[in-house]
């Protein structure tokens, strides 16, 4: 993809102005000095890889993250009898499991590591949120980014903390580990009647795929009109030029509707945040309010009934949908099995 604007002459490094926020922070230092990665300019990206701000909150966040990582490494080594090569070989299969019940784990091996590790990482993530807030205040941004980060934390907390609390056992949460997390997602869906029929799961997928679609649309639109400066979005919001005109008209003529340089970012933002918020809702309702999403779906008429059910009364409602509704008279096969 050719660059649509002339390659810019590289200006000197941009540095933030001094601020009372920065100097008041006891750990207020920027780590390292900025440097350039020239390759990035070929892709239209900024080459300055600037110094990162440490800050008290950042330092705490990194500290706790590393502590948790250390606990994970220690527990993994313990599981492999101290053999570091085996840790590497079986890395995907290593799993640090949570304890049963809601109290403290009976021992380190039986859930203690999991609890310690997650406590460190929970604190780390909350400290990062504090860092986010502090930087937003320093640069005088509206707190959209903070709300997005807190929503992501909400989803993670729902999976790892709130739902196990509601269900009465830490063992409802995933174990720590690659395959362990994937298996948790699989087992969770299998046990609770197939999460595809969970309406908030459907919403979350709608927002997730919609996010990718919107990113494709917005990214493509800006790149297509970047020659006219549509990527300078703040300037375009103040006063639209031909780039924004063309972007808006393209979509208006294509689908009859268009956003403007400001409202498109509303769409982007709320789709992204909607993903995590819907997911959180879908998770917290599973196993607590709804015990079998397929049965729930059949009872509410969402889903075809694919055969007699052995746990029809699971949600207290009698079976309502007769077999074969939504199907033609002659035998058809259940979808996804390729027919017979």
């Amino acid at each position, binding site marked *: 993809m050719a660059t649509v604007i002339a390659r810019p002459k590289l200006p000197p490094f941009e540095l933030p102005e001094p601020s009372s926020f920065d100097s008041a922070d006891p750990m207020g230092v920027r780590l390292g000095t900025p440097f350039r990665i020239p390759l990035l300019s070929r892709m239209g990206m900024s080459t300055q890889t600037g110094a990162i701000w440490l800050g008290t909150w950042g330092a705490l966040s990194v500290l706790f993250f590393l502590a948790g990582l250390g606990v994970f490494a220690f527990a993994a080594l313990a*599981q*492999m*009898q101290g*053999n570091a090569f*085996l840790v590497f070989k*079986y890395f*995907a*299969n*290593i*799993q640090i*499991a*949570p304890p*049963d019940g809601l109290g403290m784990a009976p021992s380190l091996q*039986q859930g203690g590591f999991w609890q310690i590790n997650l406590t460190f990482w929970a604190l780390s993530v909350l400290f990062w949120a504090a860092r986010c807030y502090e930087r937003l205040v320093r640069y005088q941004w509206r707190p959209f980014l903070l709300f997005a980060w807190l929503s992501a934390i909400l989803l993670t907390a729902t999976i790892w903390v709130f739902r196990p609390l509601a*269900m009465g*056992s830490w*063992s*409802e*949460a995933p*174990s720590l*580990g*690659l*395959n*362990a997390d*994937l*298996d*948790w997602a*699989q*087992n*969770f869906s*299998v*046990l609770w*009647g*197939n999460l595809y*029929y969970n309406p908030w799961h459907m919403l979350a997928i709608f927002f997730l795929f919609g996010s990718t679609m919107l990113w494709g649309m917005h990214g493509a639109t800006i790149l297509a009109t970047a020659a006219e400066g549509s990527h300078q979005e703040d300037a375009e919001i103040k006063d639209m030029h031909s780039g924004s005109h063309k972007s808006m008209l393209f979509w208006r003529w294509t689908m009859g509707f268009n956003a403007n340089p400001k409202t498109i970012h509303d769409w982007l933002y709320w789709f992204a945040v909607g993903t995590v918020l819907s997911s959180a809702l879908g998770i917290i309702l599973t*196993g607590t309010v709804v015990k*079998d999403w*397929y*049965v729930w779906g059949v009872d509410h008429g969402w*889903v075809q009934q*694919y*055969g*007699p*059910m*052995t*746990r*029809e009364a*699971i949600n207290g409602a009698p079976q309502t949908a007769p*077999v*074969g509704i939504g*199907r033609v008279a002659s*035998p*058809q*096969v*259940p979808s*996804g*099995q*390729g*027919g*017979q």
Partner: protein
Amino acid sequence: MRKLFAPLLVAATFVAVSSIAPLFSPAKAAGTPPQGAPSMGSPSVNPAADGVELDEHALQIYKGQYGPVDQSKPLDFSDQPKSVPRNYVGGKLYNVQVLKNYTYVQLLGQMAYYASSLGVQCTYCHNVNNFAYDTATKRIARTMQIMSNGVQQAWVDPAKRDYPNYAVTGAVGCVTCHRGNPHMAVRWNVVPVQYLNSTNKSTRQAGYVVNSMYSASRSLGVNCLFCHNSADFVSLQYYPTNKIAHRMWAMVDEINHKYLPANIKAVTCYTCHQGAKWPSALVKAGLDQTPVQAVAAHPEYQDNPGAHLASGADH
């Protein structure tokens, strides 16, 4: 950096090719992960942590502490049954406890069957100086014979009755599990059937069940859809295959608990099925339908028009 390009490319190609090459090699070793790491077919969940007694021995080959019989060991009659003669004269039957009412010729034939099914010689169970002498392997063999009869009566015959179209002739025999090896192939353990049937599982306990399902599906060479419609694993358990599997699971449980010695709970789905839907030792000769068609023709299947499965095509 540019000077390194060619050697790096060569190295990368070498790494790529040698990583892929084993895919084409005929031998695929099982590979036993170390203790504490999860077993095959169960990518990560460790059920032992939950107090479920899954068979740790299942991943170890049961090494004989029992046969073959040491022929040079002096005979000690202190705890032998009374029917065992001190001086054995060939051609007569003594110490026959399970295979009663067999003639001499029939018994020899049965012995030959044992030997060929297990891939052993007579010396595996017998002291050739005194064939009637009781040995540890003989005692195990008696248990095995009782088990074989019991499984046939309690599990296989009823299945033949209930599913006549696709059920099998032939009986459960030594070869069904042993397949020419005194040590059974032990592979892919499963949870006890009570564990399957209990409600109110936690998500982690569901994981043990799912792992068992992987084990079962691999043992039969099928995928999940052979018994399930994934729309709901929990409540949709109506396929004939699903019901048969329930029975088979209970059978495996009974074999493990009732017949095998306490330190060997090693029978799993794989023991008999060895990767086939129908154990080769039991397939009816001249069956005019493929097994999948026979299942599909079953009257119970017709109520569930969506129950036709193409899983056979995938494995």
